[in-house]
C-alpha cells in the first residue's frame, strides 16, 4: 500500500483481478463524482448456483459469511456494513446513524464485487496507518462507521493533551486527512439541494466522509474466487461471449477439426487446434485449445482445459478436467474434478470425486 500513495496523485479505482462483470462503470464512478464521496463500491444480489459443483459433498449456502449491508431510501448511500463473522449474537446499530437516517434498509445476500473508487486522502491515510491490513474487511467498514462519528480529536477534549501526544501515532483519524477546499464549499452552501428532509441540518449533516454503493440488479458480475463461481462463470460464457466480446468469432474455433459439426451443441465453445472425433456429442461445454477427443465420446456440461486427451467411448458429465490430463478408453465420469496431468486408467468409473496429484493442493 505504501508505494501506491507516492505513485497516485489523484483518486484511485481499485479492482480485484478475479472480477468478471459487465456493469456500466459510469454508474459507480458517477456516484463517486457527483456526491464527492469518500468511497464508492459495487455490489450484486447473489443467486443460488443451480447445479452441483464437482467434488463437493452436500449443498452450500450461496453467500457463506453473510454481510449485513444497510442502505438508505434511495438505495445508493451506504450506511451500515457488518460481517457475520465479526458479530457475536447481536447486530449493533449506532444511535447517531438512526438519528440522521431514520429509514435504513438492511440487506443480506449481496455479493461484494471488490471494485472501489477511493479518494486520494484515503490512500494517504492507508499509507500512514499501518494497523489496517485488508481493504475489504477493515478499511471499508471503518469508513462506513466513520460517517456517523465525529473526529476523535474533537471528542477527546483539551484536558488530555499529554495523552494526545502519546496516542498520536495510534489514533490516526481519517478526518485529519480529509482535505476541504474552502471555495468549493461556498457553492453547495448557496445551492438548495438537500439529501434529507424534515430536519434543520444542511445536506449530509455536514459530514465529510460519505460512502456510496451501486447495487446491480441485472447483468453479470462474478468474482471467481471459489470453484463454484468459476464453474458458474464458465457456464455463462457461451451465452455472453457473442454479445459481449467478439461477435464475429464463431464459438467453435476455425482451426478446430470437428468431425461431426451437428453433434456439437450451439452453446459450446471449442478452442483452436482441438480435434474432435466422430460420433462425439458435446453439449453445454467449454473445451480448451489443443485437446484431442476421440470417437464416441459423450461430453455434457463439462469444462475441459487445454491439452487434454480423451480416448474413445468415454462419457463425461458435469466434470472439470484440468490441463494435460489423459482420460483412457471407456471411462465414465460424473461430477468429478480431475487435476492437471492426471492419467485415469481405462474403464474408470467415478462419481462425485476429486482426483488430484499428491503434490497439488486444491481448495474447493
Amino acid at each position, binding site marked *: 500500500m505504501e508505494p501506491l500513495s507516492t505513485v497516485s496523485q*489523484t483518486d484511485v479505482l481499485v479492482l480485484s483481478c478475479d472480477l468478471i462483470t459487465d456493469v456500466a462503470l459510469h454508474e459507480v464512478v458517477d456516484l463517486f463524482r*457527483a456526491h464527492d464521496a469518500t468511497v464508492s463500491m459495487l455490489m450484486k444480489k447473489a443467486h443460488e448456483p443451480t447445479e452441483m459443483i464437482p467434488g463437493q459433498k452436500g449443498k452450500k449456502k450461496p453467500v457463506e459469511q453473510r454481510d449485513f449491508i444497510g442502505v438508505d431510501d434511495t438505495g445508493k448511500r451506504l450506511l451500515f456494513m457488518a460481517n457475520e463473522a465479526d458479530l457475536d449474537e447481536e447486530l449493533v446499530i449506532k444511535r447517531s446513524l438512526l438519528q440522521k437516517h431514520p429509514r435504513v434498509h438492511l440487506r443480506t445476500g449481496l455479493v461484494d464485487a471488490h471494485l472501489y473508487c477511493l479518494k486520494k486522502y484515503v490512500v494517504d491515510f492507508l499509507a500512514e496507518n499501518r494497523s489496517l491490513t485488508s481493504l475489504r474487511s477493515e478499511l471499508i467498514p471503518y469508513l462506513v462507521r466513520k460517517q456517523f462519528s465525529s473526529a476523535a480529536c474533537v471528542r477527546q477534549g483539551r484536558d488530555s493533551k499529554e495523552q494526545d501526544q502519546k496516542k498520536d501515532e495510534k489514533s490516526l483519524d481519517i478526518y485529519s486527512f480529509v482535505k476541504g477546499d474552502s*471555495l468549493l464549499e461556498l457553492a453547495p452552501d448557496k445551492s*438548495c439541494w438537500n439529501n434529507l428532509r424534515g430536519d434543520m441540518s444542511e445536506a449530509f449533516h455536514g459530514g465529510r466522509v460519505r460512502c456510496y454503493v451501486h447495487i446491480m440488479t441485472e447483468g453479470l458480475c462474478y468474482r471467481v474466487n471459489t470453484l463454484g463461481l468459476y464453474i458458474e462463470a464458465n457456464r455463462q460464457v457461451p451465452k455472453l461471449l457473442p454479445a459481449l466480446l467478439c461477435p464475429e468469432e464463431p464459438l467453435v474455433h476455425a482451426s478446430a477439426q470437428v468431425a461431426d459439426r451437428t453433434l456439437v451443441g450451439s452453446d459450446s465453445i471449442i478452442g483452436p487446434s482441438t480435434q474432435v472425433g466422430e460420433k462425439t456429442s458435446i453439449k453445454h461445454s467449454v473445451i480448451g485449445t489443443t485437446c484431442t477427443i476421440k470417437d464416441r465420446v459423450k461430453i455434457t456440461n463439462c469444462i475441459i482445459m487445454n491439452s487434454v486427451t480423451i480416448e474413445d467411448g468415454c462419457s463425461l458429465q458435469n466434470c472439470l478436467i484440468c490441463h494435460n490430463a489423459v482420460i483412457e478408453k471407456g471411462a465414465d465420469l460424473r461430477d468429478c474434478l480431475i487435476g492437471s496431468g492426471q492419467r485415469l486408467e481405462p474403464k474408470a468409473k467415478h462419481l462425485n470425486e476429486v482426483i488430484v496429484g499428491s503434490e497439488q493442493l486444491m481448495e474447493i
Partner: protein
Amino acid sequence: MAARDGLSGVGPPLAGGQPAAPQGLSKEEKLQLRKEKKQQKKKRRDEMGQPADSPILGQPHTQLPVVKRVPEHVQVDDPAAQKRLAKKLERQQVPLRPDYGAKVNLFSHLHQYSRKVPLTQQMSIPAIAIHPAVVRLGLQYSQGLLNGSNARCLALLQVFRQVIRDYSTPPSEELSRDLVAKLKPYISFLNQCRPLSASMGNAIKYLKKEISGLSSTLREEEAKGKLQESIDKYVREKIQLAAEAISKYAFEKISDGDVILVYGCSSLVNRTLCDAHTKRAFRVIVVDSRPRLEGRDTLRRLVREGIRCTYVMITAISYVLPEVSKVLLGAHALLANGSVMSRVGTSQIALVSKAYNVPVLVCCETYKFCERVQTDSFVSNELDDPDDLILPRKGAQLGGWKENTSLRLLNLVYDVTPPELVDLVITDLGMIPCTSVPVVLRVKNVEQ
C-alpha cells in the same frame, strides 16, 4: 476581396494598371497588384472626403454593430443547426446528449434531457478529453445537485481556477490563445450537461477577456497566478461584496411588523432576511411550487435563524396576499429591456401582487445583467426532465405518459416577468427602477 478584384478585373479602370491577367501571375506580382489596388482605393476615398465607416452621425466610432446569431440551443427543431452542433462537438471530443421524450409543440425548439441518461455514459473512465473536475461539475449540474444561479457560477469559477492551476502551456503555443482554446470544449461539455445560466455566461466572458488580455511577456507561473487572482477578485467583488451591499440596501426597505412574501429559494433573499432578522421584527411567507419544491430549503434556513415563517403552495397566493406588505424575489437574470428572468412561477406572483397593490422588489447582482431581450417565456427557456412531474408513489397517473401519444409533459424552469409588474430592483449599485437596467448595461460596457 482585393485578390478577386485583381484577378477578374472588375471595377473602374486602374490608372496605368494591368489588364485582367490569367492565373499565370507569380506570387510577387500578385502581391504587388494587390498593394497597388489598395493604395488606389485609399486615394479615392480621401478624394471623396468622408470615411464610410459610421453612417449614423453621433454613434461612437469604437462601437461597430455586432451581428448576433441565434444560439443553437434554441434551434433544436432546425436540422441544419443541429448538424453543425454535432460536428462541433465531435471536433471537440464532447459527447452529444440525446433528447428525451415527446415535447410540447410550443417548446419543440428547446432541448429536453433525461436525468437518468447522464452524459458520462458515453465517456471513458478516466475522462481524458475533459478535465475530471469539469466532468464532476457537469455531473452535479445535470443531476440537479447544484442549483441556483450563484451556486452554479461559484462552482464554475472554482473549477476553472483548478483547470488553470493544472494547465501547462504546450511548447510552441502562447498561453493567452491556447488556454481559451482549451476552455472551449469544457464549456461545450457543461452546456450539454445543462444549458449555461446568464451568470455563468457573464463569468466566462470575463474570464476569456482576462486570458486574452494577458501580456505575452509574462512567464507561465506569473500568468497563471494573475488569472487566479482575477477570478478571486471577481468572486469577491461581484458575488460576495455585492450580496453584502444588496443586503444593506434591502434592509432599508424592511420595517418592523412587515409581512414579507418570498418564492422558491434564492441565496440572496435568504441572506438579506437572515441579516435583517437581528435588527427588525418581521415574519415571512414562503411560497413553493412543484416539482422542485425549493421553498422547503428556504424554510429550513429561515426557521434555523428563528424567523417566523408560513409555508404555502403557489396555488394559495391569492389567499395570503391581503396580509402581505411586500414581496421580495430573486432573479436568475435581468434582461436588457428590464424584464426579470427567474424561476417559473415568479411572474405569477408578480402579477397577482400587482392586482393586490403589493410592492414587488427584485434583488439581483449586476453581474447577472444580460444583454438579451425577451418579451415572452417561450423563445428561450430550459426544459427540465419531464419524469420529475411523476409523483413517486404507487398508482401514479402520469407514470405511463410515454405510451400515450397525445400526452406531453412540460417541466419549465424559467419564466419572464415584464418590467411593469416590478416596482424596484435592488442591485449592488443601488436601488433602481426596472427601466434603468439598459443604463447599467451601457455603463458596464463602457467601463470594460
